[in-house]
């Protein structure tokens, strides 16, 4: 199993967890100060190309952070699916970003740098932080006037890999090359507008740039773990759950779960569209097995109380899909025991019996009932009456709260 990120909440007591965050904050603040981010003229002069110190620190940090993240993911140390990736809200991001840019050039800080300026007693930093508190207040008072805009143009956990349809390694190389080019261009601009002599800067930076590019290429060559890699890695731990049928949910338990309103139940029906149209459970979502891979990011971003139940006609396809989802670190995935065939056997009523008959012979993963009308979910068996059925079963669904953080640094 991929060991990082750690799930601090389950490993440590709350005070110790907070101590870890305090230490991370300490290092963050220390490095910001060390790099000169508490000095507003340095922050502002990058926008006049005179002193690109802040620009250099910033893009170097992004590239170094990115390379370490994707390198540790490539070698199987870090699970990229379990780290927080900011969701994309296109238009509120653009407008918010432009407003931030105006605030940046007028105020000479951004929130993180203003905190460090305040901590080092810069009076302009203190005023910026005070203004910042007012800004939060104003936002809370006004966002309701345009909440559709604020919550609109939502694309979920969307990465540059998704946008350009390129593997992570290639995106990593392109971002690294772009950053190195921007830093090189930045030094040229500094020479023109700020009379800075790039020859005075240490030569080591060229070697550093070389190392960054080499690491990026190495990441692309190693590649990110595939679903098969991830399942091989996980099989020793979760394989037994399959063998012991720990993840196969009895139809009776699923029916009870329909009525457990503390859970966010997601039903994934992985059969063909034709079978799905003949009959499916109420609110089930039809996804073909080959479409699952592209929906992983959506599953990861679901709320923490989500339980996913996968179903096919029998259990073979649903078990494969379970492996994919579980290998990709989607938590709380279960399989409908016996599939839709077993469900219909258990719950079909006189209404269904009118339009369908049970076949004596059916192949593996084929619907064992013949319908002469497409019922979809417009029949009692799609949402059986809870009061009519009582089953004895072994309870399988348990909420495992290990999942990607559902709030970033901005919550």
């Amino acid at each position, binding site marked *: 199993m991929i060991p990082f990120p750690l799930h601090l909440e389950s490993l440590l007591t709350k005070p110790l967890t907070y101590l870890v965050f305090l230490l991370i904050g300490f290092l963050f603040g*220390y490095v910001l100060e060390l790099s000169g981010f508490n000095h507003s003229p340095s922050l502002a002069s990058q926008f006049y190309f005179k002193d690109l110190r802040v620009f250099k620190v910033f893009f170097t940090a992004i590239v170094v952070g990115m390379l370490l993240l994707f390198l540790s993911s490539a070698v199987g140390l870090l699970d990229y699916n379990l780290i927080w990736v900011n969701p994309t809200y296109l238009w509120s991001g653009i407008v918010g970003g432009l407003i931030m*840019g105006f605030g940046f050039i007028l105020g000479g800080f951004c929130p993180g740098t203003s905190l460090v300026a305040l*901590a080092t007693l810069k009076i302009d930093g203190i005023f910026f932080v005070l203004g910042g508190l007012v*800004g939060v207040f104003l936002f809370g008072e006004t966002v309701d006037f345009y909440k559709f805009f604020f919550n609109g143009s939502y694309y979920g956990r969307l990465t540059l890999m998704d946008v350009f349809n390129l593997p992570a390694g290639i995106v990593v190389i392109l971002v690294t090359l772009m950053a190195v080019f921007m830093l090189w261009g930045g030094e040229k601009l500094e020479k023109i507008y700020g009379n800075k002599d790039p020859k005075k800067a240490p030569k080591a930076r060229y070697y550093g740039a070389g190392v960054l590019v080499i690491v990026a290429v190495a990441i692309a060559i190693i590649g990110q773990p595939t679903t098969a890699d991830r399942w091989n890695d996980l099989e020793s731990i979760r394989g037994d759950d399959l063998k012991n049928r720990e993840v196969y949910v009895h139809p009776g338990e699923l029916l009870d779960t329909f009525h457990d309103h503390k859970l966010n139940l997601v039903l994934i029906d992985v059969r063909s569209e034709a079978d799905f149209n003949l009959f499916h459970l109420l609110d089930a979502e039809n996804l073909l097995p080959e479409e699952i891979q592209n929906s992983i990011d959506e599953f990861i971003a679901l709320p923490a109380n989500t339980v996913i139940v996968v179903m096919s006609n029998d259990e073979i396809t649903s078990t494969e899909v379970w492996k994919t989802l579980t290998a990709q670190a989607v938590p709380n995935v279960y399989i409908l025991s016996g599939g839709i065939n077993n469900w219909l056997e258990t719950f079909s009523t006189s209404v269904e019996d009118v339009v369908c008959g049970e076949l004596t012979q059916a192949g593996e993963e084929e619907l064992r009932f013949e319908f002469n009308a497409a019922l979809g979910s417009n029949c009692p068996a799609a949402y059986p009456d809870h009061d009519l059925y009582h089953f004895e079963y072994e309870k399988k669904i348990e909420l495992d709260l290990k999942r990607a953080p559902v709030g970033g640094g901005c919550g």
Partner: protein
Amino acid sequence: MTENNKEEKKKFHLKDLFNRPSKPYANPYLGGVLLGMVLFASYFITGNGLGASGGLSRIAAFIEDLIAPGHIDQVPYLLTMAGGQLNPLDSWIVIVTAGVLIGGFTSGVIHGRTKFETNKGPNISNQTRWLFAFLGGILFTYGARLARGCTSGQALSGGATLSAGSWVVMFSIFGGAYALAYFVRRLWN
């Protein structure tokens, strides 16, 4: 410990802490490498990136909760942070913010850069600088709330994890600042 050492200890005054000779800032590329490593460590250990505006907004919510507790419960945006019995300060991001303050202060003291002063362009008064810092602060955090994160939470953290939206926010921040820079050049030049 010798007598001599004790003598020296006695001479220590708190104000000396703030009057140390200022050292120059670190090489920007070195600072960038260190910042990237801290960012990575944060993701590697906790799964979360770095952030600053989230801590600020919770502190603002805390202050509002003190002044007008009833009002919080009518503002949906604040409700999730400070509604009812929720303590807006009970969040990891507030702890990170506290760490930033301590870390920044510590480095400032060690390198002789923690001192009361106003940094500004050569052609404006301190008062003008303070006014624009205040206005800039309002705009920046307003925009940061709208974009769901600032230079730290979106541009830096989301940039390194290759979030598409974060790269859009990053270019918007720099775009906005470069677009306005010419018109306010008197502030800084």
